[in-house]
Every structure is written in structure tokens, then in C-alpha cells.
């Protein structure tokens, strides 16, 4: 869509960095600090530019030039990005139910304003198709929920990442994988929606490694951790239905995950892993953990008359840490004396009983995903931080969604 008399090899690209209410850019402060410390080598080499909403990048190989420039300014996750051209951003915004300038909140820790346009810029960079954008918007609303504790997630020296589970018919419509290999790699929607959320957290919220984001080692889930919940071959109620939403609606569930641990076996195997990989931080803070159950196992349990709550209770009773083992843990000996322990942990200690990994059975969130194979392959997602977090956000579509989808599919309107 270039106008006449424009040079060849020019790309008009949006700036992905958050702006604060007062007009400043989160990079202003971060860049100052980055130049002082330069924690990751060349990362801040290009950060001295005067930020503008849109700039023109010119090169014979302009995609590469935008990529190099954005990388050097610290605006990528290290992987190549799709240049957020004015046209691509406009198309992304078209799939938002709200206008480009709508601000849905301020992202911690630097209080960058999450305007629809700014989120769209990062979604383009992540490689999202425009129709994924309503899911990205819902996810951002999720991390803005106080229960998510975004400030903690962004700045802690632990390595927590948002876990994004999409439920409802939209997951299938958009091709968000809930089946074989759902945690990747290989699925465009899973890969790019989760990545968009990360780029938004980094660029709009201002979480820069070593400056405001102190995660000690990081983890692959900080690139993306997004999958769908099984709709078919799910004998139980979906997460969004459990949250009181209609089955025909779609929603994202956001939790905080320290990692994902594959467990092949039955519920006792799961309980054993959950107890030993107890993420002592969920004991320290009181947390909410997620358990992905393989479809075949879910079918078998359901056939025996088990509800999800039965599964949670079973795991809650068995996933426990022997009290002596707990007392010798680093968290217990080095951290707990300063921070104190939740009353339910103190009670368990006093009774010399094994220590539960969460306070209530309901803090173990169960959902069904994975391949239609007989192998019972489950996943345990330990958590970090407080308060217990299980945020469910309905996905809102633009009023002309059907027409937009048809147009995108090339069938015209």
C-alpha cells in the first residue's frame, strides 16, 4: 500500500514499546539503566534513538534490516520477528472489538499503557494471524487481573511464565492445538499467541532481562506456553464452564507456571512427581497449580464415575512432602524464617504430618489435553507466587467477526 513516489525497500514500522501515561517511553528509563550495566552485550547498542510511533526503515533487504534494528534495541525475544508494518498493524487492529486507542490497562513494572494498537504491534511481531488477536487481548486482560500478580511475575528472580489455556469452540476454529504435541513445537496459533503475550510483557510492560526482569535462568516456557483444552474427548466440564461461562463461549485461563513436567503413568505417579517437584514456592506463598490429564486417562476415570474434583482431591491427599524432607529444604531453612509460612503449612508441620503442596484440593486445577493415544501422558505445572491464580477471561470478538473471517479466508464479502 505504498504511496506513489516512495522509495523502494522502505518499510513503515510501528514502535512496539509501551508509553507511560505521562507520554514517556518505558525504554527511556530502561535504556539509561541498560547503558550503565549492558547486561547482555549488544542488546542496547541501538537504544539511543528518539522513539517515534512509526519509523521508516530503508534497505535493499528491508525485512532483515527491521529485524536487526529491533533485535539491537532489545525488542525481540531473540527469534526473527515479522516487521510490524502500518498495514499489518491496521489489519490486526481490525480484529479487535475495541478501537486502536483504547487502553485496557497499564502493564507492570514500567506502567506501559496496553493500548489496542500497541498490543497489535507486538502480536504482528510474534507472527499472529489477525484472527488470533481477540485471544491475545483476553490474555492481556488476564495478566492485568490483580490475582495474576504481574509485577511479581515480571520482576521476580524466579523463572515463572504465564500458562495460557484456551477453552471453548474458538480454540478449534483458530486451530489452537489441544491434541498431539499441543505444547509444541509445530502449531502456529499455540506458538504465536503465547509469544505475543511474552513480547507484550517485555516491550509494553518493560520487563528487560537483567534490568527489571531478574529471572535467574529463565525457561523455554517464557517464549510461549499456550495450548487449548480438549473440547472433544473431554468427559469433564471445561475450565470456562467451571468459571460460570456458557459452554458455547470461549475463554482463556491464565495461571502462573514455573515449568512443565511430563509425567507418564497413573495418578499415583503424578502425585509422586507433584510431591517431589513441589515447587516449594507454592507452599511458601500458597499457590494454585495445574495438572494436564491425558484424554484416555480422563475417559477411564470418568467411566469410573470420577469428577474433576475427585481427581484434585485424590492428588491433594497423596501429593505430600514428608515433614522431615520439607524441613530440610532450602526454602524452609533459608527463606521461611524471614517470610513466615502460611497457617496451613504451620498446622501440618505441628502435626508432624506430610505437607500438602497447596492449601485446598481446589487449588489443583485439572484440565484435559494431549494426544488420542493409550499412553497416559500427563503434565504437572508447578506454580510460583501469590495469590492463588486461576484467572478466566472471556474472549470478546469484534461485531463483524464472521464477515472478517470470510474475507480473511478469501471468500470475499
Amino acid at each position, binding site marked *: 500500500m505504498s*504511496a*506513489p*513516489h*516512495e*522509495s523502494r525497500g*522502505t518499510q*513503515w514500522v510501528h514502535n512496539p514499546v509501551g508509553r*507511560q*501515561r*505521562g*507520554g*514517556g*517511553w*518505558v525504554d*527511556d*528509563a*530502561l535504556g539509561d*539503566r541498560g547503558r*550503565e*550495566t549492558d547486561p547482555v552485550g549488544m542488546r542496547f547498542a541501538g537504544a539511543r534513538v*528518539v*522513539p*517515534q*510511533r*512509526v*519509523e*521508516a526503515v530503508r534497505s535493499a533487504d528491508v525485512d532483515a534490516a527491521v529485524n536487526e534494528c529491533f533485535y539491537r534495541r532489545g525488542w525481540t525475544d531473540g527469534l526473527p520477528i515479522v516487521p510490524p508494518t*502500518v498495514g499489518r498493524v491496521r489489519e490486526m487492529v481490525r480484529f479487535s472489538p475495541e*478501537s*486502536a*486507542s483504547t487502553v485496557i490497562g497499564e502493564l*507492570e*513494572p*514500567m*506502567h506501559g499503557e496496553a493500548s489496542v494498537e500497541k498490543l497489535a504491534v507486538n502480536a504482528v511481531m510474534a507472527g499472529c494471524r489477525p484472527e488470533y488477536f481477540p485471544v491475545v487481548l483476553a490474555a492481556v486482560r488476564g495478566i492485568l487481573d490483580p490475582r495474576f500478580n504481574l*509485577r511479581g511475575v515480571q*520482576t521476580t528472580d524466579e523463572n515463572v511464565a504465564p500458562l495460557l489455556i484456551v477453552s471453548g469452540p474458538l480454540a478449534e476454529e483458530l486451530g489452537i492445538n489441544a491434541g498431539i504435541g499441543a505444547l509444541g513445537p509445530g502449531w502456529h496459533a499455540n506458538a504465536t499467541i503465547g509469544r505475543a503475550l511474552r513480547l507484550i510483557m517485555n516491550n509494553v510492560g*518493560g520487563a528487560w532481562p537483567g*534490568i*527489571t526482569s*531478574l529471572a535467574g535462568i529463565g525457561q523455554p516456557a517464557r517464549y510461549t506456553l499456550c495450548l487449548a483444552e480438549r473440547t472433544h474427548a473431554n468427559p469433564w466440564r471445561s475450565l470456562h464452564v467451571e468459571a460460570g461461562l456458557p459452554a458455547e463461549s470461549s475463554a482463556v485461563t491464565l495461571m502462573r507456571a514455573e515449568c512443565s513436567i511430563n509425567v507418564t503413568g497413573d495418578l499415583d505417579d503424578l502425585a509422586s512427581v507433584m510431591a517431589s517437584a513441589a515447587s516449594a514456592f507454592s507452599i511458601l506463598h500458597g499457590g494454585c497449580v495445574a495438572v494436564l490429564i491425558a484424554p484416555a486417562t480422563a475417559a477411564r476415570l470418568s467411566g469410573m464415575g470420577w469428577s474433576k474434583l475427585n481427581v484434585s482431591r485424590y492428588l491433594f491427599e497423596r501429593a505430600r512432602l514428608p515433614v522431615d524432607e520439607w524441613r530440610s529444604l532450602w526454602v524452609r531453612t*533459608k527463606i521461611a524464617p*524471614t517470610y513466615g509460612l502460611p497457617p496451613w503449612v504451620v498446622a501440618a508441620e505441628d502435626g508432624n504430618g506430610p505437607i500438602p503442596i497447596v492449601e485446598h484440593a481446589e487449588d489443583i486445577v485439572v484440565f484435559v489435553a494431549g494426544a488420542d493415544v493409550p499412553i497416559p501422558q500427563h503434565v504437572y505445572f508447578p506454580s510460583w507466587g501469590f495469590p492463588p491464580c486461576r484467572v478466566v477471561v472471556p474472549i470478546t470478538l469484534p461485531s463483524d467477526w464472521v464477515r472478517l473471517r470470510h474475507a480473511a479466508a478469501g471468500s470475499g464479502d
Partner: protein
Amino acid sequence: MLRVSAAVESAGFPTATLICEGFLGQAKATSSGLGVPTLGIAMVPGHPDVQSAVELERNIASVTLERVVACLTTTSNGARHLVEPAPRDVVFEGTFDEVQRFFYENLWSDGLPIVPPTRDRVDAFLSFVDRSPDEVLATVQLDNRAATIWNIAVNGVMAGCRPEYMPILVALVEAMADPAYGVEHSGNTPGAETQIVINGPLIKDLGFNYEQGALRDGFQANTSIGRFWRLYLRNVAGFLPHQNDKGTFGGTWRVVMAENEDTLAEIGWPTVCSGMGLPPGQNGVCIARYTGSHVIVSVYGTSAEECLPYLADAVVKYTGWELMFTVGMATGTYKPMLILSPIVAKTIAASGMTKADVQAYLFEHARIPARQFENYISGWTNLIPGKRSLYDLVMLRKAPQVFGASRDPERLVPLVLRPEDYMIAVSGDPMRTNCYFLAHNGMLGFPTMKPIVLPRDWSTRLRAAYAE
């Protein structure tokens, strides 16, 4: 921790936040994000987790305590400068179309093409003021950006002004920055728009239209200076729709109105600017924000007595909620403007009436029942809380006696506080008997006049400019 300190600091109390050595950088960046970049931080050496009680006590006493005292006893300015291009930076190089796109995408234009503000063009504008380009006239709210001779010239170029308009642009920005005008309110929801009025010999020297179509586009001086006003509000004051310009509907900028000074001289009436203190024969601009406008068509009559009732009726009809600026919210700041075409002005003057007589007439005759006045300010609206009657407001000394002569809801009250609050201008088609009324936005864009200061050798420079 920092969040608590930021909240306390914002409430006006000094704070000191204890931060371990390894977290100082994060604290600095975070306090900036919290909007208090200079939050008081007292460093704790090392980390207490690995220090004995004795070590910790020694560290606190020798390092931290001193900083705590300093944080609590010194003040600092929390404002942070935005990183923006320096005045002479070339922000973009490209073709004409690319420049248009760049300025539009960065929200620096109003959607129409701008004239690229090249250094040459800016220099030409600067040659029409005897002031340093770097001179800061004021800081302009909302963005608290410096208004400089340089950025006036840049926006003047962009708006399509001619270099010789520069002295007028400078006067306009001086008026904009005058606290009496209240530029900080320019993003309010009524979305009132400024009307610039110009007086003085410059009207003819620079070719302003002051006759037929006085408020119409099509005349470079009137049009481009009107556009400059809006571009300056956008680019320097920082008012952008969908951001901090919350005008519900808004309106396009108004072209500059030049008065017909020949008619005014003929009938012996003062100009708008001379009514506000400008010495006769001098050049000046007056700015004020108006919430709406209406044309009063076919004023019929051969005398003031026959013409004025229609005009008084128009003043009543086109004034509504704005009465909260007369009594209530900002008492005495409602200053509507009535523009008379020369032929109407002459007819009225021929009856022996001065401008002050017209103002007095409107004050006496443009009146409405007290209950209707109260409907506008607090009955149909919630502009004045408390639902107090005009009578009560007079008793509370919040309104003058004329609004509370009795408790009778049908008693007639005036629309302004004083006769001179009616501003009268003369412009438009000299031979058509139409008039024009502008309802006013009170203290949120109060009439403000500034003289226009011409550079040395103005006539020589102007001749040179027009000779090219």
C-alpha cells in the same frame, strides 16, 4: 515496597525506601515507571540474608541511615523530560509523499498534507522575528513542552503559513500560554474551538479577508493561521483526539476573523482588541474558545430599535448550559461574541448608539426566567451540584444581586454578569444584513489579547518578501 513509597510520596510526604545493593538498578527503573523517578532510595550494602546481626547493624549505621535522613529532608523535582528530537535535528529524509506519511503516522499532522518543515523554510520564518530561535516563551500545558520561537516557526511552515505571518504566530502562542486563557482545558468534553480575532494595519498588509465570507476558508492568511493554531495545540501543547483531547464532537479549527476596521472607524466604535487594551493603530490578536455558533439571518429594520430585539433574542436562544460560567462554576467568565455585518453595525450606529450602548441593551433585554437559568445550570444538567436556586446563590454571595431580586421563578435575569461581557465585533459581507453569534466556553478559554510585535525594518522585509 516502592509502590507504597510512591503512593506516600504522591500524597506529599517524603519517603525513604530501603533497597539492597543488588537491586538498586531495578529500583531506579521501577520508580520511574511508578511516575516518581526520583523516589528516595536508601541503599543497604550487600544483602541482609547473608549478614549477621552485628554486620547488618554496622552497615545500616554507616551507610543506610545517612541516606534515609537525606531522603526525608531534601526535595527533588519528580518530573522527567521526554526524549524528543532536538530543534535542528533532521527527523526524516525522503520524498514529499514519504514526508507526508511520516508526519501523519507520528500524529504530527491533522490529516491534511503539511508543508515539510525544512531548515530553509524554517529559517525564512525566523527572519521575520528579532528573537533567538531558542528563546523559550513559556511552557505549555498539557505536555509542559517548551514553546520556542523555533517550534512556532516549524508549525507555521507545516500549516502553510507565509514567513511574514511569524509575528502573528508568536503573539498567538503568547496568548495561548497566558494563564488567563486556560489552554490546559483545551481537551474538555464540550470540545469548544478557538476563534482568533485580528486587529490592526496587518489585516490589509497581509491580505486577511474581512469582508464577504469572513469565516470561510479560501484566504491564505485567515486559513493557514487558523490551522497553525490547531497544529500547535497538537504538537506542542499535546492535545490529541483519542488521547487527551476528549471533545465529544469537537469541530474543525476556525479560520482567523479579521474585523472590518474601515467600518469601525467610520462609526467610531472600538475594535475587539482595543476594547481589551490595545493602543489604537497597533496590531493585536484576541483568542477565546467558543462552544457553538449560529448565524442570525435577515436582520430587518432601519434603526437600532428595530434591529436589536432580534439580536437579543438570538443571544437568548443560543445560550444554554454555558450559563454555568455566568453564575455557578466560574462566575462572571461567560463572554459570548456577537458579530455584526457592517451594514447592521452602521444602521445601529446611525441611531446614535455606541458599542457600549449595544452591550447595555443586550444586558437589559437578553433575559430569561430564573427557573430556566436554573434548568441549564443544575436542573437538566449536573453542572452545578447542590441544586441551589439563583436566589440562594445570591444570599450566599456567590452571585450578584441582579440574579436574586426576588424568589419569583418567573423573574427575568440577565445572561452575563456585566454589560461589557458581551463582545461585539464587526466583519462579514458589508452589504448583507446577517449577524453571527458565538456562545462562549467561560474560563475554559477566556478572551485573551496580545499585541503583535513586528521586527525592525518590517516594511522593508515585507516588501522584499512580496517582491519575490
